[in-house]
Structures are given as C-alpha cells and as structure tokens.
C-alpha cells in the first residue's frame, strides 16, 4: 500500500522525467492576460490584488497561460517544446478562496499534432495510474469535428459562426436551436433597405447620440449585421438540417458506437463524413488501448467554454464524478496571446487533490 507522500513523489518523478522541462511559474502574475484570454467569465474566479497605481495582479490561476506566454516571450515559436508543471493554483469559488494542487503537461509547437495528443493522453493515464485509477470514465469531445460538421452539413456561413460560438454552452445553444427550429414569422414589411440607406440612418443615429464613428462598432458593421439578420430571417435553415444538427448534438455513447452513429446519420443526409471522423476514432482507440477497463464516451456536444480549443477535447472522471484530468488541443491559444502564426498546442491539467481523494477513499 502506497502512502500519500509516496504517490506525490511518484507524481514529481513523472513531472520531472527526462523528456520534458518542468516549468517554474511565479505565484503572482499580471491579471490582464487572463482577462484578455478568457474574458470576464473566467476572470470572476481570479484572486486579484491591485498595486497603488491601479495595476491588477492575480494569484496564479492556472499554469497553461503563463507557460504559453513565456514560450512566446522566449522566442521559442516553431521550436517543439514539452513543459510539465506541478504546484498550487488559486481561485475563488462562490466568493471563497481556494488553493488547489495542479499538475499537467503542455506540448507546444509539436510537428505531429496527433502524436502530441496521444502523448498527452498517455501522460494523463500514467498520472492516474499513480493514484491507482486504471478505469476512469473518459469523455471525448470534438470541437474541430463540430466545425467540420457545420461546414459539411452546408449550414449558411452566418449561422455557422452563431452556432459555433455557442458550442460548449448548453443553455445558450439550446435557445439558439429552438430559435432555429421555430423560425420567426417572416415580416412582410417593405422590401429590404439598401445598404447605403441603412448606413446613412445608422450614421445619423450615432452622431446624434454623440458616438464616435470609429471607436466602437462602425455604421457599416451595424448595417451589415442588420441586413444579414433580415436575410437570415427570410431564409431559415431547412428543418431537416436543424433536425440533423439536433441529432448530432444529442450523440453521447461509447466512442465507437457514437462515431458509427454520426457516420450513418451523415450518410443518410447525403454527405460523407468519414474522413473527419477517422482522426477521432484513432484517438478513441488509442485511449481504449491505454486503459482497457476505461469507459470511453464520445459526447458530441462536449466542449470547454473557452474558444481557443480547436481539435479533440477530453476529461477523465473518477468514482466520485469529479473531473480528475482534462485537456485537449488548443491551437488558437498562442495566437490569442500574441504569437504571429498559429502554433500547435495540446495539453492537460490534473487535479491532484481529487486524485488523492480517489486513492485514499
């Protein structure tokens, strides 16, 4: 029987293994980048402190962001790198400060993204094994797959981005689906206005409201969206397509069956979707091979809320239903942080306190 400190020592060995660099990240970080990357919704969980001149700092709320930022600052873009980390992070939940131990892996700029993701999954698997968790519940989601699906199902571009932006937010997505399923009555008002007329009306309204025409939304932008809305309302997505979208989003079962079902529904709808599914199949199979006892579910509507995730995402839960490990591919993150070019990125975070609870139950 291993003790808690032996398990922790084993985790340290994993984090310090020879093929990776253990990152050292300050406890106190500028808060700006967290807000810039993740917005107010994540920002409300930060523990903030302010200098006398009003600059906000926060206690380290995760490792991924500062590691990625350091990678950019050190001029490493394009250099394949593997960083690990282990240490406390600080957040607030319901106005109560919490300190949690987190470990994880970040693979940045790896030439073979599929291989990198499999390494991430393997890392998570090993970490769980230290805590004697050999058959976790694994939930896989496909952010890239959903984007590919919207395109393949031939959903109009303007609707596509509206749907994509709500992915990972079940309530908002459901409301949008309802709106799609029951399109508003087409208002048979006067014929659509010309773009120039609308721009003129908006410009007048902005000027009389004392608004700058360039500081915020521009008259052109408002007019274009107004006309786009008119066009979308008069040309709703066909009801079969909405039904297909709903079917797709409701898929959540063991990975192989789930992916077969998606493949079948696409064939029935008249398009072939096997190519995009292939990659997800491979990773699901790799995961299953790593932990034969694990229950690997593919959940088509599963996605983290943060919009820098791009490919496959996953989470592993234990006996108590708590998330023990989560991660995936987030190729958009480094660009968001100021990299000049897209950088392949994948990684995972492990909740050490929860792992220990599982092991000592």
């Amino acid at each position, binding site marked *: 029987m291993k003790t808690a400190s032996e398990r922790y020592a084993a985790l340290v060995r994993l984090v310090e293994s020879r093929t990776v660099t253990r990152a050292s990240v300050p406890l106190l970080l500028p808060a700006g980048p967290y*807000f*810039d990357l*993740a*917005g*107010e*919704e*994540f*920002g*409300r969980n930060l523990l903030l402190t302010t200098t006398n001149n009003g600059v906000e700092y926060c206690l380290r709320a995760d490792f991924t962001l500062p590691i990625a930022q350091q990678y950019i600052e050190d001029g490493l873009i394009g250099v394949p790198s593997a960083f690990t980390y282990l240490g406390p992070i600080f957040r607030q939940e*319901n*106005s109560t400060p919490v300190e949690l131990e987190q470990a994880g892996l970040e693979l940045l700029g790896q030439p073979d993204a599929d291989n990198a993701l499999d390494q991430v999954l393997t890392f998570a698997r090993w970490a769980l094994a230290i805590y004697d968790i050999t058959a976790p519940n694994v939930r896989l989601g496909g952010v890239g797959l959903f984007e590919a699906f919207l395109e393949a199902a031939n959903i109009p571009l303007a609707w596509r*981005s*509206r749907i994509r*932006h*709500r992915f990972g*937010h079940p*309530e*908002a*997505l459901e*409301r*949008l689906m309802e*709106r799609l399923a029951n399109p508003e009555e087409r208002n048979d008002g006067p014929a659509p206005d010309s773009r120039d007329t*609308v721009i003129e*009306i*908006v410009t007048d*309204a*902005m000027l*009389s*409201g*004392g*608004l*700058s025409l360039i*500081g*915020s*939304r521009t*008259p052109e*932008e*408002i*007019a274009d*969206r*107004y006309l*786009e*809305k008119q066009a979308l309302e008069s040309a709703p997505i066909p009801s079969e397509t909405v039904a297909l979208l709903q079917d797709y989003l409701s898929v959540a079962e063991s990975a192989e069956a789930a992916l077969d079902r998606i493949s079948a529904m696409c064939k029935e709808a008249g398009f072939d979707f096997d190519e995009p599914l292939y990659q997800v199949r491979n990773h699901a199979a790799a995961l299953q091979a790593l932990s034969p006892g694990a229950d690997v579910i593919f959940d088509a509507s599963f996605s983290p*809320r*943060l*919009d820098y995730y791009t490919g496959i995402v996953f989470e592993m839960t234990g006996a108590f239903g708590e998330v023990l490990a989560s991660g995936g591919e987030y190729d958009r993150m480094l660009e968001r942080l100021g990299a000049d070019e897209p950088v392949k990125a994948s990684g995972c975070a492990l909740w050490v306190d929860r792992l220990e609870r599982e092991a000592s139950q």
Partner: protein
Amino acid sequence: MSVLPGGLTLAVPSKGRLEELTRKSFSSSRLTIARPGGARSYIGSIKNQPQVTVRFYPAAEIARELILGGVDIGVTGSDLIHEASENGEENVLFVRGLGFGEANVVVAIPDSWIDVQQMTDLADVASDFRARHGRWLRVATKYVNLTRRHFAKYGIAEYRIVESAGATESAPAAGTADLIVDITSTGSTLAANQLRVLDDGLIMKSEANLIVSRTADWTPLRKAQLEALLSIMGGVPPGISTLL
C-alpha cells in the same frame, strides 16, 4: 456583532433621499430615528427603543455588512445585496419591500445599434467583436457581479467590464465602453443619452427593503428583540426569527 449580550444594530442609509424616506417609513410606525450629530454623525438611536443602536452607512456598505453579519437589520436596495457578493442573497432575509427606491438594473445599448434587440444579438456581437476591433466588447457598470451573472446566463463570455463609479450612461459617448449595465427608474437618463434597453435586458427589479442578516449572531434574546421591533413596524408576520 453587537457588543452587548442583547441589543440590535439597525443600519440606515447615511444620506440623500434614501435616508429621508427610510426615516419617514420608520416614523410612520412611530419609530422615530434620531441622529443627534446631524449628517456628520454616524450613530443614532430610536426613541423609546434603547436596545436598538442605529448606524448610518452608505447603502452599498449596508448590503456588505448585512451579508457579513456586521449589522443585524438594515435598509438598502435589493440590487445592492445581489451585487455585493455572488451568494449575497443566501446570507440575508428580505423582510419586506418599503415602497420606495424602486429602480431596474438593465442592459442598455446605443440606440443606433439597430441590429441588436435581444441578449442573443448581443452574444453575436460580442463573439466576433475582438476579431473586428482588436479588443473585447466593453461594458461599463458598477454592477460587476450582476452583469457577470446575467451575461453568463446568456452564454456571453467575450467581453470586459469597465468599472464605473458614476455617470455610467455617458460611457458609450465618452468612448470608454460600448454599452452599459445601469440602474434606471424612469428611463429618462437613458433616453437622454440615446441608450435603449434590450427587450430582455431587465436584470432585476429593485426597491428599498427591510433586510435581516442571517449571518449575525442570533441569540434567543436578540431574536425576541427582533420580533418585538418588527411587530411595531407592522406588515410582517410574526415568526421571522425562526427562519434565522
């Protein structure tokens, strides 16, 4: 927490119309609030109720003190309780509305945004705002918590809050924010600034409330004193203290 074993602390807004109307409301129940030092004093009493200490605080501070249990009873806007802390309402008991200080907390946008009627429109605008303008959509408000909760409910994550202490309605014209979340009673200030409330932009209706702290240290004696005070005020069924 009260210093004496018994005794209640009542927090009353320290200035303006809210103070005036609170004191009027108490005196209509024959509870006359005395403020011996005038507007510059922060402690007072109620005639014939020696067990009650009156403290004068700014309304937002009353909300915080009620949540933390620093005062036992207070008068403040319900909006401020919801704003003071994410789980503020769990820590207090709303005894009753007092019929003044009515106002709505709303999401308001420039009237010229003719393509935006609902929160879902705002979600669309927020989602690609950064790609278009190189910065987040900015919301000016002093209601940081209420805004975060309301926006989260509509799946809007892509924005930043600009904290505004006063004259929030001028933020869009001043260029410091794109839209606002603010309190309005008649809507005239919004209209004067050519701002428009979204169809589903009502975050909450607020009014001045008589509020009891759940987190204060409620001994049997103090509960009895609370019941006695509330029964003088009237309009409150007996037995409130059993909920504490």
